[in-house]
């Protein structure tokens, strides 16, 4: 075989490479740069090696927010994924109602993050907010600004309200893609509703669920705006999640070195967890 090797086509990849370089790689290299040096101004900077990394990895403040962050993302996934699947299963499939449902489901997704924060901030207030006022007049004491648990639950419900639609819509599309014969065959095999869900719907929804889990994990793990607007991270540090800690570190205290080091750790955690999800969910495909 005399194959002429011509690799000129690789040049066609160059534009994409440049684009990615400018949009992702070069900015990230800046962060890497900050994370290994102590920089005061343009002329005075010192190479510090892994010092910043050592410092952030031992910082109890970051440990706390990392733990909070994992609990938070875990709760988000545990609530939104089953709820989204449930909603998708009950949504009508035909006629005017299905279009109406789709529109209603889409509305929360269209609202900007900080507006969502503001909505819930007002909604939850004991004096003028329907939720806060309603709960308090029922005799339940509720104050998201003072009570840790209330703040937590409010942030969580806000996220559920904002993003469950996304999971539901993804699942809905997955369900619509299942040919009718599967349901017909299941009826003839006398499968129970649970068996239909377990052996037909769930396996066929797997690829969209994978996308839903990844998106919701990444998004919730990076959450910043909504809790910042709603609670400002309080009461105390109860709802201070990772990005907020990071922002305080970088912009509030101007500790750019540790902040850069932590950004990279943060990034690697997201990458690692996403990879774990992906591998776990696609593992079954290989026999």
């Amino acid at each position, binding site marked *: 075989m005399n194959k002429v090797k011509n690799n000129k086509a690789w040049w066609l990849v160059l534009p994409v490479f440049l684009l990615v370089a400018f949009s992702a790689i070069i900015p990230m290299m800046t962060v890497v740069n900050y994370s290994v040096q102590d920089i005061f101004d343009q002329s005075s900077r010192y190479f510090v090696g892994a010092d910043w990394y050592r410092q952030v990895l031992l910082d109890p403040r970051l440990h706390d927010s990392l733990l909070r962050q994992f609990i938070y993302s875990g709760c988000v996934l545990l609530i939104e994924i089953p709820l989204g699947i449930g909603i998708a299963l009950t949504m009508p499939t035909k006629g005017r109602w299905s279009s109406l449902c789709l529109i209603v489901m889409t509305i929360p997704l269209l609202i900007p993050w900080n507006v969502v924060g503001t909505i819930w901030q007002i909604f939850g207030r004991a004096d003028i907010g329907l939720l806060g006022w309603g709960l308090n007049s029922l005799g339940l004491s509720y104050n998201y600004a003072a009570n840790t648990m209330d703040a937590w639950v409010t942030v969580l419900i806000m996220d559920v309200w904002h993003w469950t639609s996304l999971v539901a819509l993804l699942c809905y599309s997955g369900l619509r893609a299942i040919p009718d*014969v599967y349901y*017909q065959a299941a*009826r003839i095999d006398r499968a129970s509703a649970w068996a239909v869900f377990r052996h037909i719907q769930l396996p066929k929804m797997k690829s969209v669920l994978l996308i839903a889990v990844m998106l919701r994990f990444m998004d919730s793990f990076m959450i910043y705006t909504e809790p910042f607007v709603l609670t400002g991270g309080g009461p105390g540090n109860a709802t201070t999640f990772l990005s907020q800690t990071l922002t305080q570190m970088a912009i509030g205290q101007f500790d750019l070195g540790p902040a850069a080091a932590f950004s990279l750790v943060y990034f690697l955690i997201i990458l690692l967890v996403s990879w774990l999800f992906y591998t776990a969910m696609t593992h079954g495909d290989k026999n």
Partner: protein
Amino acid sequence: MAEIRLQNLAHSYSSQPTSADDYAIREMNHIWEQGGAYALLGPSGCGKSTLLNIISGLLIPSEGQVLFDSRVVNELTPERRNIAQVFQFPVVYDTMTVFDNLAFPLRNQGMDKEKILAKVQEIADVLDLQTLLKKKARNLTADEKQKVSMGRGLVRDDVSAILFDEPLTVIDPHLKWKLRRKLKQIHEQFNITMVYVTHDQLEASTFADKIAVMYGGQIVQFGTPRELFEKPRHTFVGYFIGSPGMNLIDVQPEPGGVGFGGVHLALSEAMQARIAQTSFSSLKVGIRPEFVHVWDGPYDDAFCAEVAHVEDLGTYKILTLHLAGKKLKIRLAEDKPVPQKQAWISFPGQWLMVYADDYLLEAAGHE
């Protein structure tokens, strides 16, 4: 085990059908006897699958009744009808192994483990699936998947009939033949009523003892492959069965018979009387390409036709002729001399069918 009876059955997908065209199934009466192997043959969109889904209970007919052994089952759901259906595209439960797939209908009935094991083994033996039992169903080939779909129907003891909806569509040609034989064996072994929907006449005639030909939402003929070939009761059957299909020629009644463009075809007195009694808007004669007689040379009672085209298909030849402006196809055996330019042909009376408004006219004594 059951006899399936369709009584005044009709189905329309629209809620308020106004004309006959709104019906996917036009009113019909039909019986599938217990233990028979039947084919439901027809072109796409003729209502075959609708009829099948009505029998299995996936669709509820808008009019008439479906009876299993004289029990009306109209309102019964498929799961309560003891029926199995194999679909055009193989349906397997992807995440389960082949064993679990076959065991699934039994587990849904709450059968005990040992019985399930024995039953699945038995069916796996019949379908040659033993070596695959531990494999995940999603990794099977199309024909293996289709065997698993069939297996899920066969594994149940209580199945009274198995319905096949063009089950071999996605199967490779060389495997089609094997699977068809397998089906035939299974039919002989289990004595289950089988209804097999297809648009392939070869598939229908190799599988079935009797074929129902469907056209325009109706069963236009129900008979053995031979009956369909020799005596098509509807022009569609003549055209659809056989290769090439029946020659159909528009004719006018003439004294002593019928004719077209100066060609006179003599008919029996009885048939002439039958034509005279019948009112119709179109009259056709039909004759199979196999049955047109070709003479070696000029002959008194023969018609002289122009040879337009000869197609050699190896074991036989197909002649295309022009006779008084009409096109005729003739199937000529390999050893027969091929007429050049002109052919002398005649139409043997016993094979010449007369159709009034597309339905066969039979001389007195028959319906």
